[in-house]
């Protein structure tokens, strides 16, 4: 017997019956509606208060110094870098969705790319806070850039930490540009549909006078594709460089050549988990089930499973090469500090990590789980925790037990650490909630394009081949569209 399918769930990329006007109205009304939902307001208030914790932690750090954190020798790097890497990683899915899937002609990106890009921006913004506060002497933060200064000192270009400065700033800037360029046509839509004068003026100024000229579109699409082409290697380089932060140090458990691909996969893994954590409530709250459809959720779940398996592969390699290296330090790190619950105070985190990142994703092999939003939501939460734990394991186990037993020590975070960490979660969600009410969370122009490819939304389509064929035709006819 065929199970009755819920009417508001669809496995296509867009629900039936949509035309240009209806998608425009549907998405822009979320922004332009003057009704403020109680739930939204309540959530903003809650998260803004949580974000206040970040402010508190920041004030503590600025006033009293980094000594308020739990870091100390031997763990000179702790929550700061754990949270930094965690957030950066989460940011990666946004770029992956918007850039790589665009290059791969994966049209299912269309309805999730905008908010995924916003997620990237906010996540990278949150990530950037930690190094900024950790440097201690904040007034000299500009020393990280290659500007001549009174010390006559240049950045140490052989350090991956300086590469981080370049990578993170480039990433933030290019993501912001990519995001803004993508927003311009939608800002024009909002300008044209806004009912109040202030809204018209604000969206009008942001839209910069976009009028949809064919010549403008031509340059716009060329730029957009090329930015996607640039963002793709960029996003890989960012987490590769983050992995170098560790792999370059001769610390047991850090110095291993698999780190770059393993970190990149982990980043995408955590990022897609966050996409699901955001998308599942978003589509329910704003009735976007026919725009962010089950197909999107399932595809995200598949990417999560694939990258998760690479991460698990990374764990296997860490254990195997920990042994195969023959180095007693690597072996001690792997088999005692990480695995031995009796000997090591941090072994629990390694097992928790395996449960969250390894076991929890296994149900995703089944389509039933991949198409169950609640299950996906829960698994995504597990993965988010798991990816945080992964950085915890890498940093804390390795630093507390390095080469010299005399230099061993333990680490525990202080309340300021926790405030800064939980605070950024509040900051992230506050920014995100503001974003979905102030800007279109889904690219309207691209949704219209999607509608155009499917015959004005009248015919339902069953395979995703048609528009890809059209893309191919376009490229053949007009060589400039190639990238």
């Amino acid at each position, binding site marked *: 017997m065929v199970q009755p399918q819920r009417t508001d769930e669809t496995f296509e990329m867009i629900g039936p019956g949509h035309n240009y006007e209806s998608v425009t109205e549907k998405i822009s009304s979320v922004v332009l509606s003057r009704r403020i939902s109680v739930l939204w307001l309540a959530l903003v208030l809650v998260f803004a208060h949580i974000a206040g914790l970040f402010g508190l932690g920041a004030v503590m750090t600025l006033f009293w110094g980094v000594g308020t954190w739990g870091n100390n020798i031997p763990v000179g790097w702790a929550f700061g870098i754990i949270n930094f890497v965690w957030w950066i990683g989460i940011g990666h899915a946004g770029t992956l969705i918007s850039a790589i899937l665009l290059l791969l002609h994966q049209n299912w990106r269309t309805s999730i790319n905008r908010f995924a890009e916003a997620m990237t921006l906010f996540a990278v913004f949150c990530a950037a806070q930690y190094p900024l506060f950790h440097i201690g002497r904040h007034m000299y933060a500009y020393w990280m850039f290659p500007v*001549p*200064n*009174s*010390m*006559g000192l240049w950045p140490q270009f052989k350090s991956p930490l300086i590469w981080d400065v370049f990578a993170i700033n480039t990433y933030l800037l290019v993501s912001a540009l990519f995001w803004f360029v993508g927003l311009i046509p939608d800002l024009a839509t909002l300008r044209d549909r806004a009912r109040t004068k202030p809204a018209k003026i604000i969206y009008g*100024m942001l839209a*910069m*006078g976009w009028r949809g000229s064919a010549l403008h579109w031509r340059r716009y699409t060329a730029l957009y594709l090329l930015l996607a082409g640039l963002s793709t290697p960029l996003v890989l380089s960012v987490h590769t460089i983050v992995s170098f932060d560790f792999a370059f140090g001769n610390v047991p458990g850090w110095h291993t050549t698999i780190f770059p691909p393993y970190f990149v996969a982990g980043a995408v893994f955590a990022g897609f988990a966050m996409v699901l954590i955001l998308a599942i409530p978003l589509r329910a709250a704003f009735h976007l089930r026919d725009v962010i459809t089950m197909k999107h959720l399932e595809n995200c779940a598949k990417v999560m499973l694939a990258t998760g398996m690479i991460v698990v592969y990374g764990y296997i390699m860490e254990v195997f090469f920990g042994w195969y290296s023959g180095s007693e330090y690597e072996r001690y790190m792997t088999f005692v500090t990480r695995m031995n619950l009796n000997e090591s105070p941090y072994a629990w985190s390694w097992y928790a990590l395996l449960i969250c990142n390894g076991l929890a994703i296994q149900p995703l092999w089944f389509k039933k789980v991949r198409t169950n939003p609640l299950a996906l939501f829960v698994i995504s939460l597990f993965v988010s925790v798991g990816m945080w734990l992964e950085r915890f394991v890498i940093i804390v186990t390795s630093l507390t037990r390095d080469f010299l037993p005399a230099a061993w020590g333990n680490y525990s975070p202080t309340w300021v650490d926790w405030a800064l960490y939980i605070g950024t979660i509040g900051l992230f969600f506050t920014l995100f909630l503001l974003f979905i009410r102030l800007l279109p969370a889904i690219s309207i122009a691209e949704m219209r394009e999607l509608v155009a490819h499917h015959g004005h939304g009248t015919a339902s389509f069953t395979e995703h081949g048609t528009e890809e064929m059209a893309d191919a035709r376009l490229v053949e006819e007009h060589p400039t569209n190639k990238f």
Partner: protein
Amino acid sequence: MAQIFHPSTNTLSRISIIGVLVGLLALGGAIYAGNMSYGSRVNVPIEQPVQFSHKHHVTDDGIDCRYCHTSVDKAAFAGLPSTETCMTCHSQIWSDSPLLEPVRQSWATGQPIVWQRVNDQPDFVFFNHSIHLKKGVSCVTCHGRVDQMPVIWKDKTMSMAWCVDCHRNPEKHIRPREFVYDMGWQPNMDQVKMGLQLIKEYDILPAQQLTNCSICHR
């Protein structure tokens, strides 16, 4: 659809964007300028509790540096003169000069004179005067012609780049040991040639080691 913006906004928007960019550049430039050598207060006279003139004491009176900075050739710190050092002469000459009132005050009360530091390295820099003198670095090299300063000022930036400049190429700056206190000494042969000889003679470490971080940051 009605126009939202007046035609003049086109010009206005462009001007404002350029204005913001120019403003940011100017701001950056100002911060930059403030941090360069002007920011390190080179050549800015430093007010001291007593208007002491190095020019007068060194050039006119011929007093050696070590008379007041007694530990310069033995220790890390060159030493600042105590009130007693001043009073060895000034109990006899200029003993009622109003300029010397703070010195006599200090002598009477036992409260030391609070000299203002001219060159002060941060705590994370390990600097030792004696080794520099031993290897032929003159006072002049770092402090300038103090013998010509009626009031004291900082002569060099004391920035790390400046230190490392010499650590990288000591031959350009060193001189025979016997002339390190001679303020007006000039080499009578090629400086670099002489410097290379002295490097050998005084066992000065190669630049690779002299620029090792832990030479100064220990």
